[in-house]
């Protein structure tokens, strides 16, 4: 028995992992979530603003992390749309442009009354700029030195939302969804901390512990990993029951099923591995 377990081909474990994620996903199992304090802080930050406030939505992620972050970005977008906020989209990742597009699609398809055909007055897509933290440093001081035109090549002076905008210090909230560098950490370092811009972030599990010490002084709130996304979706649904009908608004909630099974599998594997380890040690010393 020990021999078999010691020499187990790791591909069997891969298969187990595949099943653990695939089966709940196909079954579509969901669990009820109760939003935690951190998530409520994020929800309130968006919800307590007056309708029609200005929000910068910085979506700094790529398709590789979309599995974890797309539900957050969509939830932020929906929540802002329900509050009829003005949204400025931007990204520091070249791969982020299509990610912005999917959020804009949500605005146009699900909230046509507020947003369809209102490009420039209700939302604007600034697109990507190269330079990582250099871009942040510039947009908080002098937006138009970095973005002279939006993604369609329209001059920012010809767009109502950006015409009088010198920099983003004056926006009411900064929403950042980030998959790493450049991302949340840089926004805090160069944006929210020196200029006191109210900021909420949604970030990957990898970054979450690193961002934790910034709460609550430099960061208003944080959505950590897929769990954060699921709780946030739940918080929005609790306040705006009309979303409960929309299956797309439950992306994060659906992903929590595979998460549970996979976590349990991993704990089982760690436990089993350690049992084998101590067994070996006992045999070795005996």
């Amino acid at each position, binding site marked *: 028995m020990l021999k078999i377990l010691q020499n187990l081909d*790791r591909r069997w474990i891969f298969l187990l992992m595949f099943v653990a994620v695939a089966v709940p996903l196909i079954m579509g199992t969901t669990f009820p979530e109760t939003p935690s304090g951190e998530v409520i802080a994020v929800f309130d930050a968006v919800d307590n603003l007056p309708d029609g406030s200005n929000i910068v939505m910085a979506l700094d992620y790529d398709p590789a992390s979309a599995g974890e972050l797309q539900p957050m970005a969509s939830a932020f977008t929906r929540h802002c749309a329900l509050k009829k906020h003005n949204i400025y989209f931007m990204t520091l990742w070249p791969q982020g442009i299509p990610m912005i597009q999917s959020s804009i699609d949500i605005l146009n398809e699900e909230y046509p009354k507020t947003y369809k055909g209102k490009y420039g007055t209700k939302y604007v897509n600034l697109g990507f700029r*190269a330079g990582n933290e250099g871009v942040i440093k510039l947009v908080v001081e002098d937006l138009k030195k970095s973005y002279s035109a939006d993604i369609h090549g329209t001059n920012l002076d010809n767009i109502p939302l950006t015409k009088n905008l010198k920099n983003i210090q004056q926006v009411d909230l900064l929403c950042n969804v980030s998959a790493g560098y450049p991302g949340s950490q840089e926004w805090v370092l160069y944006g929210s901390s020196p200029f006191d811009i109210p900021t909420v972030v949604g970030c990957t599990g990898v970054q979450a512990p690193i961002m934790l010490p910034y709460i609550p002084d430099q960061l208003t709130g944080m959505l950590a990993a897929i769990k954060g996304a699921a709780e946030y979706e739940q918080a929005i649904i609790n306040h705006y029951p009309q979303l409960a009908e929309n299956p797309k608004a439950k992306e994060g909630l659906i992903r929590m099923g595979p998460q549970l099974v996979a976590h349990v599998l991993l704990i089982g594997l760690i436990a089993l*591995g350690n049992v084998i380890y101590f067994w070996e040690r006992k045999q070795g010393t005996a």
Partner: protein
Amino acid sequence: MKRTIPLFISAVTGFVLIATAFIPKFVDWGNDAMAWFNLLAAFAFVLGGGNLLKMQLQKISAQQPGWGYSAVTLIAFFITLFVGLAKVGVHPNVNFPEFAWSGDYLEEGSVFWWFFEYIFTPLSATMFALLAFYISSAAFRAFRAKNTEATILLIIAVIVLLGRTYASEWLTGGFSNEPIFGENGITYSDFKLDHLTQIIMEDFTTPGMRAIKIGIALGVASTSLKVLLGVDRSYLGSDQEA
């Protein structure tokens, strides 16, 4: 010439940017420097492409093992570059239809968009998805409670893993709101896994990360200072390279 001027450039740029924090007059200069910085960063992408080209061509011309894959890389590179720069399949801007080049290079339906959507996205996403499998086999074969440190780490990891899913409700959902002893405010439900996770994050991970951050901040500051003063010149490379 080869060393003095770069040291001078980096020192001037760095100290001007440091001064922007204290002297408002410098802010505008700092912004100009950042605008140039961002442009250089864009050219760094071009440099990256050029480097890739150079390396793959070397591999092919030397007929190194696996040079065929280098050819594949190059073909993919050139096709993508062409459809992107030539805006293949892009319609002009609706407001200015007579300007054929005024369209958005990533417009939905264009060839470049197709490459992103159907080749880049699945490849990069799947590359990262592989990590979940590696973690599972590492869980089985590598994460051992070898010493006190590793044991603490694994126990905490298990609590957080459970506390961040519905498992906490299953396992510890039944803990009641009754106080444990006396009027001290601690109840059984405080020991629910999700609550424990929260305490771990707020009272133990936060200070640990704070200390790490304070250390990193000092490290970054001293490294930056050494670069600006020319004490650390490793970024210039060795003289042989030139």
